[in-house]
């Protein structure tokens, strides 16, 4: 654990110091450049906002509607065939849609089954190796005004499904 702590505590300060030291030694006007970059960041943020409102509303409606729970019930038998513990299906379905929801679900799995249970381990691997796919697509394309995402969703979903199947397989293989 200490190794992780070390990296997570030191990564940002070391990186920022490195950037500043190199900048100053190359005679960059660091403060002026920072302001210019920060201004760009703020403008981008404003530009993403309308798309964010539209899609986050839709996603929170989806979560409130109870359809994810319905899907979980329907999918449990199929998951069993692939060697995926049925307890983690709610997490698998929530993960692409909601980052905070997935984290809450993960805690729930740890609290119910234990962090070292099969479900707990598979859930840990799944949570660590996948992303909030839908949110990422929304924010990134929203920022540059792309309306046609073409095959993005298909490719990303392929990756997510692979992540679900592989997380169960990898735990079985590497953690016995």
């Amino acid at each position, binding site marked *: 654990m200490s190794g992780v702590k070390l990296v997570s505590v030191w990564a940002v300060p070391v990186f920022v110091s490195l950037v500043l030291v190199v900048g100053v030694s190359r005679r960059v006007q660091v403060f002026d450049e920072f302001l210019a970059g920060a201004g760009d960041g703020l403008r981008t943020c404003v530009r993403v906002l309308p798309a964010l409102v539209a899609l986050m509303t839709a996603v*929170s*409606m989806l979560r409130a509607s109870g359809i994810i729970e319905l899907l979980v019930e329907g999918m449990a038998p199929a998951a069993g065939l692939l060697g995926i513990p049925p307890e983690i299906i709610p997490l698998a379905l929530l993960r692409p849609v909601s980052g905070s929801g997935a984290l809450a679900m993960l805690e729930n799995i740890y609290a119910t089954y234990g962090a070292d249970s099969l479900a707990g381990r598979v859930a840990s691997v799944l949570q660590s190796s996948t992303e909030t796919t839908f949110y990422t697509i929304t924010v990134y394309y929203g920022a540059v005004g792309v309306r046609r995402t073409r095959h*993005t969703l298909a490719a990303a979903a392929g990756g997510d499904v692979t992540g679900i199947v592989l997380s169960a397989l990898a735990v079985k293989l590497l953690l016995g």
Partner: protein
Amino acid sequence: MLNVIWVGIMLISIAAGAATGKLEQVTNALLGGGEQAITLALTLGGAMCLWGGVMRIAEKGGLTALLAKVLAPLMRLLFPGLDPSGAACRAILMNMAANFLGLGNAATPLGIRAMNELSQLNPEPQSASRHMITFVVLNTASIQFLPTTVATLRLKYGAENPLNILPAVWLTSLGAAAVAIALSHLFALPNKKPQRQASASRRKAKA
């Protein structure tokens, strides 16, 4: 595309909410979603300013150019045809570095910068370019070396060795990313020019 997804999600949610008797919660989500998005944008806004500024210093100091030089072979493989020393590639690398180290709130603003650079190279601004798709898919697959949040949670819930999941995490995230990227390149193979033109008029109507 987003039109269909958006309408689909909203209508499915309302129908499902009515069917499961959770229509009230769906309505609350509908009315509160905007607030949630603004809150997120404010949180993200601070990080976007900070990392936008830091990256600009790194750029002017020549750090990003150095990283681009070292990782040029990888970039040629992932983004064939994209100038490995160009601004877009440098922004992509910064985003990948932040993701790799598990710095989520740095990765998003850097990724949006990369999308801006890619957008300037895109002949059809309303339609995702091939490199944009690869880049977004790379981010949805999240290659993470150190899952700090999960490790912390595992410790909190009494895992014997919170980090024993690491090899499984690496295997899974590399496998998922490889499949996602392979798919993005595979779908890009057939030239769909005629179809794109057919939908151009529809796009104009939307805009």
